[in-house]
């Protein structure tokens, strides 16, 4: 377990030398999965520590600064993306094995697979196996985990995460969250 000695060190003098580091530490701790943080903020914070993603920003970003509400941040992001598009969403039906009702999600509300998975997990109150890791490929955490799959434009059922996010947005017709370890291949 990481005892994080830096955090226990009392320091004198002007703050600033440790601040950025301590902020990054805070957001990377597993308990802090605040779903209200914007993807831009979230990705740039994790970028600083995850070199498998795209290059980190020149300046480490601080949590909650500048003090712009998550709601506003999300609206601005959605705005930047859809400036040339209409305001309508991409609604797809989502079925989950064992659940009596279908749900609908607006894929445009999410900017990445991670966000979509979080949204689905919240909606169905289940754990969906972490499907996507750029370096390691698919992770299977055991047969209890649900697998997210989707039907694409050609009518084929695919594992969510195969294609880049934007391509997924334009080809996904419906989602199905599958239980257990049914084989998807073939």
């Amino acid at each position, binding site marked *: 377990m990481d005892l994080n000695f830096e955090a*226990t060190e009392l320091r004198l003098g002007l703050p600033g030398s440790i601040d950025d580091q301590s902020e990054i530490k805070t957001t990377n701790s597993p308990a802090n999965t605040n779903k209200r943080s914007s993807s831009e903020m979230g990705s740039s914070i994790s970028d600083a520590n995850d070199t498998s993603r795209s290059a980190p920003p020149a300046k480490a970003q601080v949590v909650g600064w500048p003090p712009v509400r998550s709601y506003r941040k999300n609206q601005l992001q959605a705005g930047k993306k859809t400036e040339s598009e209409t305001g309508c969403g991409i609604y797809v039906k989502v079925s989950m094995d064992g659940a009596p009702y279908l749900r609908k999600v607006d894929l445009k509300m999410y900017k990445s697979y991670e966000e979509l998975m979080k949204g689905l997990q919240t909606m169905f109150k289940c754990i969906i196996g972490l499907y996507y890791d750029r370096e390691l490929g698919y992770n299977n955490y055991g047969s209890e985990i649900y697998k997210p799959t989707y039907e694409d434009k050609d009518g084929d059922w695919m594992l969510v995460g195969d294609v880049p996010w934007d391509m997924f947005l334009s080809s996904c017709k419906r989602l199905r969250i599958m239980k257990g370890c049914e084989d998807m291949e073939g």
Partner: protein
Amino acid sequence: MVNSFPEEVLEHVFSFITLDKDRNAVSLVCKSWYEIERWCRRRIFVGNCYAVSPGIVIRRFPEVRSVELKGKPHFADFNLVPEGWGGYACSWITEMSRAYPWLEEIRLKRMVVTDESLELISTCFKNFKVLVLSSCEGFSTDGLTDIAANCRNLRKLDLRESEVMDLSGHWLSHFPNTCTSLESLNIACLGSEVSFSALERLVARSPNLKTLRLNRAVPLEKLSTLLRQAPQLVQLGTGAYSSGIRSDVYLGLSKAFSGCKALKGLSGFWDVDPSYLPAFYSVCSRLTSLNLSYATIRSPDITKVIGRCPNLQRLWVMDHVEDSGLNAVAFSCKDLRELRVFPSDPFVADANVTLTERGLVSVSEGCPKLQSVLYFCRQMSNSALITIARNRPNLICFRLCIIEPRAPDYLTLEPLDVGFGAIVEHCKELRRLSLSGLLTDRVFEYIGRHAKRLEMLSIAFAGNSDLGLHHVLSGCDGLRKLEIRDCPFGDKALLANVAKLETMRSLWMSSCAVSFGACKFLSRKMPMLNVEVIDENGTLDSRLDSCPVEKLYIYRTVAGPRSDMPAYIRTMDQCRVNTIS
């Protein structure tokens, strides 16, 4: 002598006393007044839902019709409060459903609300009229379905900036045809498209509808249809404000707007296409409130709009307005009371907009009634702040956010102590202040000395030592809420001002230097305070007394420690019990 008036007369007199403060004073006069007052109090405001329990409130005030509760600390808006912190409305709603069958209004801010609670509200309160959920979360459109379907006398449904699990827009279609009482509907935060025909019919059968805030998914070409059905609207929030270049849409919209003679406030304007702005020119002269803070409109378009709004009292914009746009505000909007300028690109070091301190100075010069400011910018100077302070001693709320933490006066490279000092010195009625930029203990000395009416103070990346915090705690007589992040404030100031904490609603400190031991001491000394320590690294059990706490939230309460804390939060009572020392 006091009892020479019959109760009914006193009750009648008390009915004219509406402010909580005054009601509380009335109840302290004598026992019989306390009794009479508590039976006829109809509105309750609880600024911190953990300061009191539902049971205590219900026992004292049995005939309440309207309840307002606030949950999470303000810094939750900026992701500083971890998930699962609390603020659950469930226990309140459940107990009120049993105790207040005639409850009409519920207003919640920063609370977690479930679909089950919404269902309970919709079925238990037969005369339910007003539901306002401001920055709330935890519920889905399924819960809204129940509200729509079951609340027969619903007047107001306002979802203001809440985070709703948006399963579909179908919920709106559940308002029955018999529902004609709607006065205010705000669904701006929802992503899903609602059935337009259901919306149109709802609007058409609601003659008292005064406020309508649509969501982004309502297309512009449909807006004129709604306006024609509701020409009596006073406040309108548009949906997406673009539609390709279509003259029929433009003409229809323009005509519809000119029919809205009562329109005083506009908001929305997502994805704005400037060529559609002139469509609402006809209402500009009557506008008192304009929220363009989600609209990317630049000069000259924004200046043209502003120039047409001489009666504007409230203006919210993005920094695209630039100094030139604010000059136009200073010139045209002589009745302006509130200005908010939001950053379009908050996470970029150099934004592509010319918004500087000059814009704010200009507005402070030109707008004599300006009392409330929220301003994000990238540079500030002491001289600008001094000028603003001298121009506008009537400021009540001054929130300045210089985007770079610890940014000095860009002209002199000095701290901004003197500038903010001038603000608190000149603006004697200042109630709310947010600081930013490079600041030493000196600024807190000024604040402690002058800011006697200050009720809420937000501090970030400021100060040198405990002396700074001590100045604030010992000097600001009216202080109710204090929130601090990333400042070198430790134990000394807190422990020297322990009694002060009981006079305040709450204190938040994160990434400061307060020790675990000091928290324990504080908790022992002040049983009327909940001292909650937040530690997401899960090391609360093994913390030494000398270790600094990550985040600290202290608030006064008559309800004792709360029982719904997640594992990473402890009150110091618990820690006292757990440690064998």
